[in-house]
Structures are given as structure tokens and as C-alpha cells.
């Protein structure tokens, strides 16, 4: 028993020592796991920050505004994130004349190169390495991203990846922005071209019309009846030509979908109906045609460009007036139905020959009997109406019997 005691003590001590050792080991392992977790968390944080920076950079570049200021902010934030001495973003941007200009941004250490000595900053400070990453879109160079390391703190692998990611994101966003700007410029050029053409085509005709009107109204002195008659003919033809040019230009503009030129706003179809009926009434009285108009007593609002709706109503009404002989009758109605707003114009006019019906919406097409009545129509009215209706998911239906009359029905669906 006495012999055993020291052995037991030794064994206990040994066991305690072993347990203590195991405990220390476990604690060390724990600590190192904690440290690993902390390190992974730290890396994770940096990756997330880098992703946030990249995302912010792309959305900033895509926001219209001064590109230089935007690049400046991105470069400065990148310098902060990478803990670098400076970051410079260079983007070649095309100015209005297609000349490339390079936008520099971000603080970047200027170096003074003296042969045989390590490069120094202008202030004499030591410079670190400079990482240059091209900003490319395919084969096309858009610029570059340069990161100047602090001399005592080289970029680690993650930071180099972050810089690459940023360069790629900037490349995609910058290319997208340049394409968008080029497209906007092309649209603007097209718009200016249409405006300039409109002006050049209309101006001389407007002047002819003006001179003829001044002449026939006697402002340049009294004329014989025959002279007046001829001046009236010149005036009439010029007016017609001006209308034709307007129709052509309307079509050209609808083709271009210059929506911004005709802003969409809540429009009361009832109010447009009333004003167009008013205008048609004057024309009907002049031609001895009866006009009966009725509509539902509600405003019938739609989101639309007022000019479009006016054009649709005016075209159908003026067709009815043009092709209804003296003594005839036009009935126009506007009503709200579950399927949409229905605009109907029924006339007792010359009607449309059966084989002309399918071609009614073709530009410049005019039915033979229409040509007999009104020699100078343009054949563009219904084509224009159909184009406008497409914008509003509307539809038009024409039903006609030659010699009896025509029903034109437009449906504007609910929004």
C-alpha cells in the first residue's frame, strides 16, 4: 500500500499534466478557430464592400450627369477601400464631334523620374508600385484603372481582384453609357433633321399661299373677276399642298415615335369630341350636309397625347364631310362601353367599293370613286389614324356600301 502511494501520486500528476496539456491544446485550437472565423469574416466584409463599391460605381456611371465627377468619386472611394496612395480612372469619352477626350479622375501621386534613382513623388515621398488594369470592351480600349500602392503596404491578392472587378464593371457601365448617349444623339439629329426639312418644305409653299391670299383679298390693289378667280386657284392649290406636306410630316414623325414631342396626359375624349364636332359643323354647313352628334354624358378620360386623339377624330369626321354629297347626313356618336370607348361616324355618302375596302389603310391609297369627288386627297388619313390607334391598343373598323354610305368605328380600350 505504501509502495503504491507514490506511484498513484505520480500517475495522478501525470494524468493532471496530460489533461492540462490537452486543455491548453484545445484552447489554442479554439483560439485559432476564432481567429480564422474572424479573418474569414474580415475577408467577407472586404468582398462585400468591394461588391457594393462596384455596384455603386456602375449605377453612378449610368446616371446621366457629368462623367468626370462620377469617376472622381468612384476613384476616391476605391482608394479608400484598397487603402492605396491613389487611384486614377481614365475613360476615353467621345465629345459631340466624335473626338476622343480622356477624363482623368481621382488623386494620384505625380512622379518625378530621375534616371538611376528610384522614382519619387513630386513632394519627395517614396512611391510604391503602380498597378495598371486596362478598361476594355472586347478588343476596344476604353481607358485604364491605375492603383498606386503605399510603399509600405503592397496590395494583397484580394485587393488586386477587387481592382480587376472594378475595372470590368466600369468598362461595362461606361460602354453602355456611351452607346446610350450615341443613340440619344442620333435621335436628336433625326429630330432636328425632320424639323429642318419640315421648315424647308413648308416655308416656300406657305409664302405662295400667303402671297395668293394677299392678292385675292385685294391688299395689292383691285383685280378683275378673272384675276381674282386665278388667284383663288393658286391659293387653293397652295393650301392643299401645305396640307399634304403636313400629312406626310405627321407620318414621318409618328414613324419616329417622337413621344416626347407630344406629351401624354389625361385627356377627356368627350371634350375632344365636342371640339372636333364644332369644327366639322362649320364644314357641314358650308356644304349643306346635316350633322347629328350625340355622346354619353361623362368625360371619358384616357392617358393620351391630345393631338393624337384630335387627329383620329378629325380625320374620320373630315372623310365623312368630304364624301357626303349635299343634302346628306352624318351621325357621330361617342359612348363608353365595357369594351372601351366607341367613336362612330356614319354617313350617307358615296361609300367605298367592295374591292377597295382591304386597301383602305395602305398609305397613299385612294378608292377610285373618292378620286372622282375629291381630286386632291392625299390617301394618308386612314393610314395615319391606324398608326395612331396602335399606340393606344385601339382598333378601327370600316363598313361601307358603295352608293349608300360608310360607317367608321374606332374603339379605344379601357386602360
Amino acid at each position, binding site marked *: 500500500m505504501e509502495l503504491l502511494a507514490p506511484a498513484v501520486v505520480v500517475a495522478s500528476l501525470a494524468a493532471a499534466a496530460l489533461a492540462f496539456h490537452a486543455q491548453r491544446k484545445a484552447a489554442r485550437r479554439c483560439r485559432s478557430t476564432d481567429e480564422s472565423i474572424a479573418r474569414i469574416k474580415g475577408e467577407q466584409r472586404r468582398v462585400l464592400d468591394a461588391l457594393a463599391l462596384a455596384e455603386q460605381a456602375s449605377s453612378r456611371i449610368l446616371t446621366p450627369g457629368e462623367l468626370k465627377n462620377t469617376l472622381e468619386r468612384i476613384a476616391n472611394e476605391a482608394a479608400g477601400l484598397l487603402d492605396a496612395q491613389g487611384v486614377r480612372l481614365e475613360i476615353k469619352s467621345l465629345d459631340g464631334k466624335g473626338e476622343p477626350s480622356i477624363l482623368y479622375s481621382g488623386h494620384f501621386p505625380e512622379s518625378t523620374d530621375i534616371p538611376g534613382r528610384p522614382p519619387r513623388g513630386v513632394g519627395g515621398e517614396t512611391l510604391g508600385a503602380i498597378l495598371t488594369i486596362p478598361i476594355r470592351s472586347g478588343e476596344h480600349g476604353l481607358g485604364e484603372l491605375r492603383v498606386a500602392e503605399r510603399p509600405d503596404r503592397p496590395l494583397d491578392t484580394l485587393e488586386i481582384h477587387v481592382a480587376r472587378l472594378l475595372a470590368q464593371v466600369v468598362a461595362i457601365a461606361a460602354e453602355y453609357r456611351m452607346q446610350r448617349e450615341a443613340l440619344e444623339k442620333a435621335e436628336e439629329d433625326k429630330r432636328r433633321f425632320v*424639323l429642318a426639312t419640315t421648315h424647308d418644305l413648308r416655308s416656300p409653299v*406657305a409664302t405662295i*399661299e*400667303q*402671297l395668293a*391670299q*394677299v392678292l385675292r383679298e385685294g391688299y395689292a390693289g383691285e383685280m378683275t373677276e378673272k384675276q381674282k378667280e386665278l388667284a383663288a386657284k393658286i391659293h387653293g392649290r397652295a393650301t392643299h399642298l401645305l396640307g399634304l406636306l403636313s400629312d406626310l410630316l*405627321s407620318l414621318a414623325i409618328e414613324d419616329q415615335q417622337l413621344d416626347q*414631342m407630344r406629351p401624354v396626359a389625361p385627356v377627356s375624349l368627350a371634350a375632344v369630341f365636342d371640339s372636333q364636332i364644332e369644327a366639322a359643323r362649320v364644314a357641314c354647313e358650308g356644304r349643306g350636309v346635316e350633322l347629328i352628334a350625340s355622346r354619353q354624358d361623362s368625360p371619358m378620360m384616357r392617358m393620351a397625347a391630345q393631338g393624337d386623339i384630335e387627329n383620329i377624330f378629325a380625320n374620320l369626321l373630315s372623310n365623312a364631310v368630304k364624301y357626303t354629297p349635299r343634302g346628306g347626313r352624318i351621325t357621330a356618336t361617342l359612348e363608353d362601353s365595357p369594351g372601351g370607348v366607341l367613336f362612330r361616324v356614319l354617313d350617307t355618302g358615296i361609300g367605298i367599293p367592295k374591292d377597295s375596302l382591304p386597301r383602305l389603310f395602305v398609305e397613299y391609297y385612294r378608292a377610285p370613286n373618292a378620286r372622282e369627288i375629291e381630286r386632291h386627297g392625299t390617301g394618308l388619313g386612314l393610314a395615319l389614324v391606324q398608326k395612331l390607334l396602335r399606340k393606344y391598343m385601339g382598333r378601327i373598323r370600316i363598313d361601307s356600301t358603295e352608293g349608300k354610305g360608310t360607317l367608321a368605328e374606332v374603339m379605344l380600350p379601357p386602360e
Partner: protein
Amino acid sequence: MSKGKILLVDDDPDLVEAMRLVLEGNGYECVHAPNGTRAIEAIPKEKPDLMVLDVMMDDLTEGFHVAYKIRKPEAGLEPFRGMPIIMLTAIGQRTGMKFDQKADADFLPVDEFMEKPVQPKELLAKVAHLLSRARGGRPAN
């Protein structure tokens, strides 16, 4: 005795002649400037009572610039700040460029818009109305 002096600013001499026939035939004196620059030069010299101003001359918006210079006004044009201006456009409603005096007054500082060709009677009525308003409601004599 002239009913008032009108400055016609338009690069189309034939259109100017047509307007001149209408206005001079009704007792107004007319002077002509073929573009915006010449109009700005002519104003202090001719001291017109009213201006008929074309929009598109040397460039698409020249008329607007002339109107701004008068209303702002630029140096030398101060006495003409309130001069009535009738703006002429060769392109109108059909092209979507529909001007509205009430809606566009803030950015288009003119008193009236007219589309070419102008109706002679309408032109005379607008000129008479604007001149009488500018003279504080006294009719022209």
C-alpha cells in the same frame, strides 16, 4: 399719320412683302430685318412699336433667342422690354410643335403665336389689339 411702326423679322423677303402689303395698306409703317442679329441692331435705331418675329431663320431657334434678348433685356434694349412680339412659326400643330401662349408663356416670352401663312384679318386684329394694350388701352389713331 402712321398707326405704329412694325419691325418684320423674317428671312423670306416674299413673305415680308405680303405682310407689308397688308400692314401698310392699313396705315402701319413697316421696317424689315432679315435675321436676328439685324433685328437687334435695328431696334434701338428704328424704335418699333411692335415686332413680328419668325422662329427659324439662320438656325432652328433664332427667333426665340431674339425674344429672350428683348425681354431679359440686353444692354441697349431696355426701353423695348415690353414691346409686343408676335411670333411666327412655319411648322405648327401637325409636327407636334403646338405652341400655346398660356402654357408656354414662361419659357417663350412673346405675346402671340401665329402659324404661317397668316390670315391677313387675324394679323391686323392681333396687331391692333397688342398695340392698344401696349399704349394702355388707348386705341390707335
